[in-house]
């Protein structure tokens, strides 16, 4: 089981329309998530968010705001607890995905992905610190809540870290 460094963020779902755009300024929820990735990196300057946890409703909002195809389902279900298991969870979700009528979206581009090839595909190397943002569905989370996290480095002896900061209200 992964040990993670994480931040929780809050937003009001009622602020967004049926297309996932904020009513006040038209900003998409997808772009809101990008802003939160920036906030995460600002709070943890040596880290980039690798995992995004939210409930199915929030994932649906993200899909709508990203103009996803109607047959796409955003986010892997967590089957082995409330923290992403990078070996077990993808294996289980992949097994389900193969026989599903829908297409499971395992991740989305990180806001920090800036190198793309001529066909629009991001260029990833072993030395990259930036990887796709893995989408994880945790239905114990409330509407209007999402969590960004990154695994801790060499977490064998470190304790699971969740920053006990006041819940941040997204303005």
């Amino acid at each position: 089981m992964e040990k993670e460094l994480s931040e929780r963020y809050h937003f009001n779902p009622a602020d967004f329309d049926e297309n996932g755009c904020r009513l006040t300024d038209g900003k998409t929820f997808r772009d809101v998530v990008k802003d939160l990735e920036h906030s995460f990196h600002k709070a943890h300057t040596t880290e980039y968010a690798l995992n995004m946890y939210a409930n199915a409703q929030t994932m649906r909002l993200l899909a709508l705001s990203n103009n996803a195809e109607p047959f796409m389902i955003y986010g892997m279900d967590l089957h082995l607890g409330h923290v992403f298991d990078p070996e077990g969870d993808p294996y289980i979700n992949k097994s389900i995905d193969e026989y599903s009528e829908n297409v499971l979206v395992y991740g989305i581009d990180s806001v920090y992905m800036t190198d793309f090839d001529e066909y629009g595909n991001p260029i990833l190397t072993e030395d990259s610190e930036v990887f796709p943002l893995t989408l994880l569905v945790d239905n114990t989370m409330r509407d209007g809540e999402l969590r960004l996290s990154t695994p801790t480095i060499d977490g064998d002896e470190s304790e699971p870290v969740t920053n006990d900061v006041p819940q941040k209200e997204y303005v």
Partner: protein
Amino acid sequence: METKQENSEWGLVHTPNGEWIYDFNVVYVPKVMAGLAKVLAKKQNRKLTVHKESDDLFWCYKHEFEAIDFDNFGALATKRNNEQKK
């Protein structure tokens, strides 16, 4: 520097929308087949989105590709030829 094609060993496909999906949800086709599929999809009033993977390789969502009736392609070509001869 690792390329997208080298990344394919992970089994994930990157959509133009910035989504990462497993490759068993797509079919890879050469350019000619992609063009044929688009024509047939339009004739059959079926949705088909074709994405470019490289100069000679394209991919489509598997369920959209499999919904296209390729069996009638021969009949369509024959019908058109006969109409042109009249």
